[in-house]
């Protein structure tokens, strides 16, 4: 595997047409503001699209850079999964997104494609409460098991803490809360 940029990157438009040629209308939206190419895909085809992006020889987005989620509180659908990909051969980067509604906060897991998705998805589950279908070991990772709620959701208050041990001098605590 050579260092990136050995072959010319695929143009964004041809990439879109390749995806369209394979899946039909799976890309809901696309833009490339600030130099970052972005596509939004259907949630139901999430795993298929990413598998195609990874395996198709002309694309070969074989490196999972990052996987995260954004909570657009008040919009519908509420959550947006964001995955950053890198094609190692060509040095092309791509951002893939999918919208997830609050009432059915599930999406397919990417663990079959990349092993690093394991912990990343656990983190998203921990922070946003999104469930990943097919994840081998979905449990909290940064927070403790007793923690209730999902701290990075916009409706979780910044300062609402859930202590595991009784804190000393509770009266002082109250004083500070004011």
């Amino acid at each position, binding site marked *: *595997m050579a*260092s990136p940029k050995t072959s010319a990157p695929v143009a964004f438009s041809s990439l879109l047409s390749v995806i369209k040629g394979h899946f039909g209308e799976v890309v809901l939206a696309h833009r490339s*503001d*600030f130099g*970052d190419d972005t596509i939004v895909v259907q949630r139901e085809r999430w795993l298929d699209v990413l598998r195609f992006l990874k395996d198709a020889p002309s694309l070969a987005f074989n490196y999972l*850079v990052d996987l995260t989620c954004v909570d657009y509180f008040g919009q519908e659908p509420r959550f947006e999964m964001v995955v*950053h990909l890198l094609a190692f051969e060509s040095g092309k980067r791509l951002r893939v997104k999918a919208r997830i509604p609050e009432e059915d906060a599930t999406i397919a897991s990417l663990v079959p494609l990349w*092993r*690093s998705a394991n912990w990343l998805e656990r983190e998203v589950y921990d922070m946003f409460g999104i469930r990943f279908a097919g994840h081998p070991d979905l449990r*909290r990772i940064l927070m403790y098991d007793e923690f209730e709620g999902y701290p990075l959701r916009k409706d979780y208050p910044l300062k609402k803490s859930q202590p595991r041990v009784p804190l000393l001098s509770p009266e002082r605590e109250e004083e500070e809360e004011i």
Partner: protein
Amino acid sequence: MDTEKSLSPSAEVDILEPTETRRMRVNVGPSHPAMHGVIQIVVEVEGETIVYSDTNFGYLHRGFEKECENHTYQLCIPYTDRLNYVSPLINNEGFCLAVEKFFGVDVPERCKYIRTMLSELSRISDHQTCIGAAAMELGAFTPFLYLMKGRELIYRILEEVTGHRLTINYMRPGGLAANLPEGFFEHLRDIIPVIREVTSETDKLLTKNRIFIDRTRNVGAISKEDALSFSYSGPCLRACGVAYDVRKAFPYSAYDRVDFEVPVGSTGDTLDRYLVRMGEMEQSVRIIEQCMRQIPDGPVSVNDPRVILPPKQEVYHTIEGLVNHFKLVYEGIRPPKGEVYQMVEGGNGELGYYIVSDGTGRPYRVRVRPPCFMIVSSMDFMIKGAMMADIVPVFGSLNMIAGEMER
């Protein structure tokens, strides 16, 4: 220290399943000398061989991302210092580059060189800490102190520039907080030989040390394919033989104008990771020397009222300047609506910032791509079948920085 037999939040494992001899379950961490205080590896050993392990962390989760959503862009910078606290300048740089990407501003040349130079100094201190700590955990206390001595000199010069030793808060979107102080280059010229000397002393103590080699060679080896599947980056990936370096592949600041090599290993074991780091320290010194030669004079910040505070002269004497200052401080800089991803080469690899802006003075969402998160996620994979004592060098060479990993 039977720390938290009952507290263990880990998964339940049936230890009564038929085995050859009785398995023993040992808690390594979270408050354990080799675990930097913040990671817990529950291992099950048969004799000394690890048959099962489960890595738990989050003991330093400080809510970085949530805090950022509640602060203006400038106020996020101190929080970025404390992500990878061993090389805070690189974290600053990544965040500033990401915000600059929103505005499309191009910082002055001098600023680029200073950023490059200071980033490389931070990288040296990062690698020194990593190697030193790993050596200390193997029992070699003396190399650790030698390296820390070298790091101390870097801290002093950084303090000269930025006013603080460690948590620096020096870079700003659109430039720097201040220009370089007088006598900076003389001082830098003085310490470079010392840094080289410290490195070579460590080299003598470790690289040819038979015990050190025995402890690290073929320990925690990972193949190219596995490493990529785990989204490795940085020295750990390069130790596997993949010459991927953000500084070369996607140059930022002044990296496209300096000449440096990317040290690459072959087997991806602990020894290779150590050697790659040693090589990178040498390359960093080379970059610094080139920057010292090439750096131009001039301002260190762009003259753009959207991102940079106006000069004090204008604030005191013109109403536009005063209003501009007030708005920048009170409301913060307001990038356009949208989202960016910007990566830099951190001490551990690709450090990316994904920022979503809703057009207000506070970021809607800040996500950090922590390089060591992915690297540490391979811990269980790497130590399976290894010996109990191998946890220490493997974990040390992965250079987990909890602030970055757990944010």
